[in-house]
């Protein structure tokens, strides 16, 4: 009698919650305080990028020669530029440009790189050598220089910036995915799947790709930061967005002549770029802690 009671009390101490990877992820994500704030900031940016045109107080293209180079104030919270255009409105529009350009170019690069890296790592042999040697050649050009070269050929413009940035992203993604594919390929559970007679397709997509996702997501988030910096550098150099576009880099480029007199013209877009890139980097760091098993338990 006493015994069975004791047994019951010891085996039913607690009814643990059922494990689910998503819940685990959310639980760990909440522990990443900085990353949580940074991801909220990014969500806000995305919202702004979508609804920006509706909430912008002024037309970002319309010059106002009565209000040139005004400092931040009640009428213009971020001041105005040399044509009297409202900087805050331009920043809102710029968020849409920056996010579109960086998301598009990183996703294009990520998709291309992932496919190449997966094939290269999984099949090895001549395919691997071909893909890796080509990426070696690409790596012979420093990142931004490659983008500059591509834009030099294609001509300036935002579309070409997207193409340039995605092309220079491909080899990095390919290498990343290849190395985690090689790692995953050596795992015993992949061997187990092979021993069961699983097809290449099943092994690649059921067993290997999920293994690479963690580091891929981390890299994507870091890469978006890089892409924003690269795109704005190109615009700054006059190789990206045309000067009248409310692109953050282009705004900075125009504003530099007024740096001495109206600092805000340069400060505002600079802060926007800095905070956005910072947010993506912090989110990347947080994701690394959550997703990358190597740095877990730190």
């Amino acid at each position, binding site marked *: 009698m006493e*015994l069975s009671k*004791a*047994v019951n*009390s*010891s*085996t039913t*101490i607690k009814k643990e919650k059922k494990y689910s990877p998503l819940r685990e992820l959310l639980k760990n994500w909440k*522990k990443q305080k900085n990353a949580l704030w940074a991801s909220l900031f990014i969500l806000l940016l995305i919202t702004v990028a979508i609804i920006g045109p509706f909430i912008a107080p002024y037309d970002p293209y319309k010059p106002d020669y009565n209000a040139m180079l005004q400092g931040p104030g009640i009428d213009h919270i971020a001041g105005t530029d040399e044509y009297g255009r409202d900087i805050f409105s331009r920043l809102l529009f710029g968020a849409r440009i920056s996010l579109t350009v960086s998301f598009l170019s990183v996703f294009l690069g990520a998709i291309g790189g992932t496919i190449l890296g997966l094939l290269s790592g999984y099949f090895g042999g001549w395919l691997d050598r071909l893909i890796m040697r080509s990426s070696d050649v690409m790596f012979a050009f420093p990142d931004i220089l490659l983008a500059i070269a591509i834009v030099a050929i294609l001509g300036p413009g935002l579309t070409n910036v997207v193409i340039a940035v995605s092309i220079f992203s491909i080899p990095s993604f390919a290498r990343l995915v290849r190395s985690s594919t090689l790692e995953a390929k050596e795992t015993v559970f992949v061997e187990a799947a092979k021993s069961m007679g699983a097809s290449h397709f099943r092994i690649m997509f059921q067993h290997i790709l999920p293994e690479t996702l963690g580091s891929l997501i981390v890299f994507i988030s870091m890469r978006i930061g890089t892409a924003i910096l690269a795109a704005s550098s190109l615009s700054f150099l006059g190789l990206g967005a045309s000067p009248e576009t409310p692109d953050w880099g282009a705004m900075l480029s125009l504003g530099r002549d007024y740096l001495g007199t109206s600092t805000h013209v340069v400060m505002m877009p600079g802060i926007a770029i800095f905070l956005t890139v910072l947010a993506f980097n912090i989110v990347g760091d947080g994701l690394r802690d959550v997703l990358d098993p190597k740095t877990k*338990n730190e």
Partner: protein
Amino acid sequence: MEKLLQVEKLETQFTKDKQKIKILHGVNFHIHQGEVLGLVGESGSGKSITSLSIMKLFKGTSGEINSGRILFNGDEDLINKSETEMRKIRGKQIAMIFQEPMTSLNPVMKIGEQLLEPIRLHLGLEEKKAKEHAVSILKKVGIPRAEEIMNEFPHQLSGGMRQRIMIAMAISCNPQLLIADEPSTALDVTIQAQILDLMKQLQQKEKMSVLLITHDLGVVAEMCERVVVMYAGRVVEEADVFDLFESPKHPYTKGLIASVPKLGQKKEKLDSIKGNVPNPSELPKGCKFAPRCNDVMPICYEQEPPELNLENARSCSCWLYKEERGGIRV
């Protein structure tokens, strides 16, 4: 015989995600001068943590000693020693060998450099003398071409050789106590035999005390004079090696010995211990072994058994041996 090391009510805990997890729950045992003591247990029993606690090697981990005493050489309590004082003991009076010979040596330093470190530090020998000493130690642990090996890197040597180097490093300053944490587990059987043989010889020649930590009952039977069995961060049984294998007292020890396949034993079915090794953060109430025990009694689920002294200087923590609880077999 005099006691070289006395561990009393040692409690050690780790912190994970701001939660404190106790790994050792009051560990008691002692080692005599010149004795080989086996510390046996399965994964999670806390045997390795016990050795790290003795050395206070917690830097870089969240481990800390909560309470207890670790008396070394009579009345020196290691727990009260500062880090500086501990450094003078580590490698000099108490030395340690680890399980993984492949990763326990620094891959970018020559063997000689690594071997000379403790010799210079603790013995204060000048360059030439230190080198001579190092070479003589290498020869002592059976390393051929000792002078050449001094200039080689770890990755040029086999696992067995690296473990010999680790042993050489450990005995280079004539320690009173050698803690060997699974020294032969990662090695092949024939190499394991070499290493165990070497350790036995050195122990007898140098009159060191050895604390041998292992999960392998075969190694224990072969090497040790006395044995301490650990389960879930506690010592459950302590006895002379012959007594322990002849008549194990604790149901866990009994189960452990019975579940090992033995050469020449014709048995269709092995005796096994039911259930699983418990996770240190989810221990049951009362006796930690109760859910897996064949002789479990109601009290086992309620209260932890005290450590009971039995005849032949052995002890056992089990309610079976408390007479007023109806314990029957002694």
